[in-house]
C-alpha cells in the first residue's frame, strides 16, 4: 500500500531534515551586534515543514489525478474493446471490474469485468507507486530547499510563526466553509427539486404521499404538499413538547435559583443536566417502548377508540422532558441577570419570595426566558430520532394528539434512507425540507440571540 509507504518515507525524511538542520545551526557563531534570530530547534522545524508539507500536498493532489489516469489506461487495454458501448452498461461493468480489482472475492457477473480486473489492479498499483515516487521527490526537494536556507542570520522563528498564523487562519475558516457548504448543498439540491415541483405546491399543498417509485414525469406536486409535515413538526415540537418543557423547566430554574440551598443546588443541577446528556435514540426507544403504549392505554381508558401505539403525544412528551434542562438553564441565566437591587427592593417592601418571583423577577427576566424558549423550540423541531421512533410516518393534518403524526425531520430521514434514486423528485424533496428546517431554525436562533444580547445590555 503506497499510502503507508509515503507516510513513513516522508515523515522519516522530515525527521532527518530536522536533525540535520538542527545540527548545522547549532554551530552558528553569533553575529556581532545582532540579536540571535532563532534557536537550533527553530531551524530544524523550519526544514522539517519544508520536507513534509509539500510532499503531503503532492500525495493529496495525486489522489485526485490518479483515478483519471487509471481510467485512461484501462480504456486503452485490449480487453476494454469488448466493453458495451452504452454508458449505463459500461459503467456497471467497469464498477464490477474495479470492485474485483480491490477484492478478488467480490461478485462479478460479467466476464469482461473478470478480464479487466487484473489490468485495473496493475494500473492502480503502477500509478499508486508513481504518486509515491513523486511525493518522495517533493519531500527531498523541499527538504533540500529548507536545508539550504539554514544560515546564520536567517529568521527561521519568524517564518515558522507566519506559517502557524496561516494555519490558525485556515482552521477558523473551516467554520465558514461548513456554513457555506450546508447552504450551497441545500440550495443546489433544492433547486433541482423545485425545477421539477413547483414551490407553491410544495409549501402550500396539504397532501403528502411520497412515492419514490412513481414515474418522475407525472405531476408530483399533488403528492408532495408539505403542510401536514409543517403542522406535525409545529404541533409536536412547539406545542406538546413546550407544554412540558416550559412549566417544568421554569419551575425547576426558580426552585434551584431561589429556594434550594447551595448544597442541594450543587447536587440537583447536575442531575437535571443528565437529562440533556442522554442520547436522543434512547429517548426514542423509551418513547416507543414505554411511553407510547401507556398513552394508548390511557386514551382507551378515557374512551378514545382510535388511539394508536404511535402518537404525537408520546413523542412530544418525551421530547419535552429532554428539553427541560435546556429551558431550565436558559431561565436560570436570565433570572440571575436581574439586578440584585430589584429583588432586594421587592423583599424590602414586604413581598414574599414567591410574590417577588412572580411580580418582579419573571417580568424582568421575560425577554431572556422568551429567547430561551425560542432556542428550545428550534432544538425541538430539529430533533429526529424521537419522532422517528415514536411519532409515526403518516402525514396527518389533525389536532388530535393521540393520532399518528409525522414531522419534517422524520420525512428527511425516511426519504433518504429509502430505496429511491437520487434523481427522483421525491428523494430530492428531502433537501427542500432540510432547507426549510435550516431557515426556520436559523431565524429562531438569530432572533433569540439578539433578544438575549439586548436583554443583557439593558441591565449592564
Amino acid at each position, binding site marked *: 500500500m503506497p499510502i503507508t509507504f509515503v507516510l513513513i518515507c516522508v515523515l522519516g525524511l522530515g525527521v532527518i531534515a530536522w536533525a540535520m538542520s538542527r545540527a548545522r545551526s547549532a554551530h552558528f557563531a553569533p553575529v556581532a551586534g545582532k540579536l540571535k534570530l532563532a534557536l537550533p530547534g527553530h531551524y530544524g522545524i523550519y526544514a522539517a515543514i519544508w520536507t513534509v508539507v509539500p510532499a503531503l500536498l503532492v500525495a493529496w493532489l495525486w489522489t485526485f489525478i490518479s483515478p483519471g489516469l487509471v481510467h485512461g489506461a484501462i480504456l486503452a487495454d485490449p480487453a476494454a474493446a469488448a466493453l458495451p458501448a452504452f454508458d449505463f452498461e459500461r459503467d456497471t461493468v467497469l464498477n464490477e471490474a474495479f470492485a474485483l480489482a480491490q477484492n478478488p472475492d467480490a461478485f462479478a457477473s460479467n466476464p469482461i469485468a473478470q478480464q479487466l480486473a487484473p489490468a485495473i489492479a496493475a494500473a492502480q498499483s503502477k500509478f499508486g507507486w508513481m504518486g509515491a515516487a513523486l511525493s518522495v521527490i517533493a519531500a527531498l526537494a523541499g527538504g533540500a530547499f529548507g536545508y539550504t536556507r539554514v544560515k546564520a542570520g536567517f529568521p527561521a*522563528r*519568524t517564518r515558522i*510563526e507566519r506559517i*502557524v*498564523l496561516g*494555519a*490558525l487562519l485556515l*482552521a*477558523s475558516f473551516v*467554520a465558514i466553509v*461548513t*456554513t457555506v*457548504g*450546508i447552504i450551497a*448543498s*441545500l440550495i*443546489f*439540491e433544492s433547486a433541482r427539486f423545485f425545477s421539477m415541483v413547483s414551490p407553491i405546491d410544495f409549501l402550500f399543498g396539504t397532501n403528502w404521499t411520497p412515492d419514490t417509485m412513481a414515474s418522475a414525469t407525472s405531476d408530483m406536486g399533488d403528492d408532495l404538499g408539505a403542510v401536514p409535515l409543517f403542522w406535525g413538526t409545529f404541533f409536536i415540537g412547539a406545542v406538546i413538547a413546550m407544554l412540558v418543557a416550559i*412549566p*417544568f423547566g421554569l*419551575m*425547576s430554574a426558580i*426552585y434551584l435559583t431561589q*429556594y434550594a440551598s447551595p448544597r442541594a443546588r450543587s447536587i*440537583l443541577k447536575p442531575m*437535571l443536566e*443528565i437529562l440533556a*446528556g442522554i*442520547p*436522543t*435514540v*434512547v*429517548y426514542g*426507544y423509551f418513547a416507543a417502548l*414505554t411511553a407510547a403504549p401507556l398513552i394508548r392505554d390511557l386514551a382507551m381508558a378515557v374512551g378514545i377508540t382510535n388511539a394508536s401505539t404511535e402518537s404525537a403525544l408520546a413523542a412530544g412528551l418525551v421530547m419535552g*422532558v429532554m428539553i*427541560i434542562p435546556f429551558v431550565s438553564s436558559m431561565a436560570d441565566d436570565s433570572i440571575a441577570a436581574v439586578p440584585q437591587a430589584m429583588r432586594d427592593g421587592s423583599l424590602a417592601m414586604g413581598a*414574599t419570595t*414567591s*410574590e417577588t418571583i412572580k411580580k418582579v423577577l419573571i417580568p424582568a427576566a421575560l425577554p431572556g426566558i422568551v429567547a430561551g424558549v425560542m*432556542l428550545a423550540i*428550534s*432544538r425541538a*423541531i*430539529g*430533533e*429526529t*430520532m424521537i419522532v422517528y*421512533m415514536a411519532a409515526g410516518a403518516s402525514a396527518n393534518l389533525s389536532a388530535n394528539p393521540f393520532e399518528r403524526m409525522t414531522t419534517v*425531520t422524520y420525512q*428527511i*430521514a425516511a426519504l*433518504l*434512507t429509502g430505496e429511491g434514486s437520487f434523481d427522483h423528485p421525491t428523494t430530492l424533496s428531502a*433537501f427542500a425540507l*432540510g432547507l426549510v*428546517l*435550516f431557515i426556520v*431554525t436559523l431565524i429562531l436562533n438569530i432572533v433569540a*440571540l439578539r433578544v438575549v444580547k439586548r436583554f443583557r445590555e439593558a441591565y449592564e
Partner: protein
Amino acid sequence: MSNWQSPEASARLKKRYAAERRFKALGLVAIVLSMSFLAVLLFTMLKNGISGLDWAFLSGSDSTDPANAGVWSAVKGSILTMLVTLALAFPMGVLAAIYLEEFAPRSRWVDWVEVSINNLAAVPSIIFGLLGLAVFIQVMHLPRSSPLVGGMTLALMTMPVIVIAGRNAIKAVPPSIRDAALAVGASKVQTVFHHVLPLALPGILTGTIIGMARALGETAPLLMIGMRAFVSTPPGGVTDPSSVLPMQIFLWSDEVDQGFVQNTSAAIIVLLFVLIAMNGIAIYLRNKFETRW
C-alpha cells in the same frame, strides 16, 4: 387606618404564606418529577437489559438471531468514528479558538466566522447529515456508511462546540500571564503556545469531552450517510462499512423479535455507561485543574 394585627390582616398574611409554600412545593415537584422520569427511564433499561449483559454480548457482532447478537462490531465502529472526529475536530477547533481569541483583527471576515460558529452550534444535527450526504458521498465519492465519512460529518458538528469551549477557556487566562511572557521577550506566538494554551487546556479538554460525548450519542446524521447497514463483522478500518452504537440501538429497536428488546436495552446500558464515564472525566478534569485567578 389599617391595623396589621387585625383579624383580616392576619388572615391575608396566612393566605400569602400559604401561597408562598404552594409555590415552593410546585418548584420542588417540577424537579422531583423530572428526576423521577430519569429514574424510570434508567430503571426500565436496567430491568430489560441487565440480564443480557454478558461477555458474549459485549464481544459478539450483530446477528439476525437475538441470542447471538452482540455489540462489539458497533462499539468498534463507534471507536473508529470517534477517532476520526477527534483527529479532525480537536486540532481545528483549538486552532480556530486561538485565532479568534488571540490574533483575530476586528474585521468583517472575523465577524462572519463568529456568526457562523455560533449558528453552526445550533443547526439541527440532521442538517449536518444532509451536508455529509451531499458533499462527502455525492461529490467526493467517499465510501458510504464508513467511519471515515461518519467521523468527518460529526467533526463538523463537534468543532463549533470545541471552539466555543476553547474561547471561554482562553478568555479566562488572565492578561497578566501574557504580559509577563511578552515582557521577557517572547513573541506573540510563543506567548500563546507556551503559556496561554497550557493554562487553558483543562477547560478546552472539558469542552472537547462534552462535545465528543454528544457526537457519540448522535444518530440522525449517521442515518443520512447510510450507517444503518447490517454489519456482522467488526470493521477493519475507517473505510469499511460499519455501524455505531446508537445506530445499533436504533436498528434493534425496529426488530419484531421480542429477544431484541433485551439486546436494545443492554446496548443502551453500555452507551449510557460510556457517556456517564466521559462526563465524569470532564467534571473531574474541571474540578481538578480549574484555577480561579
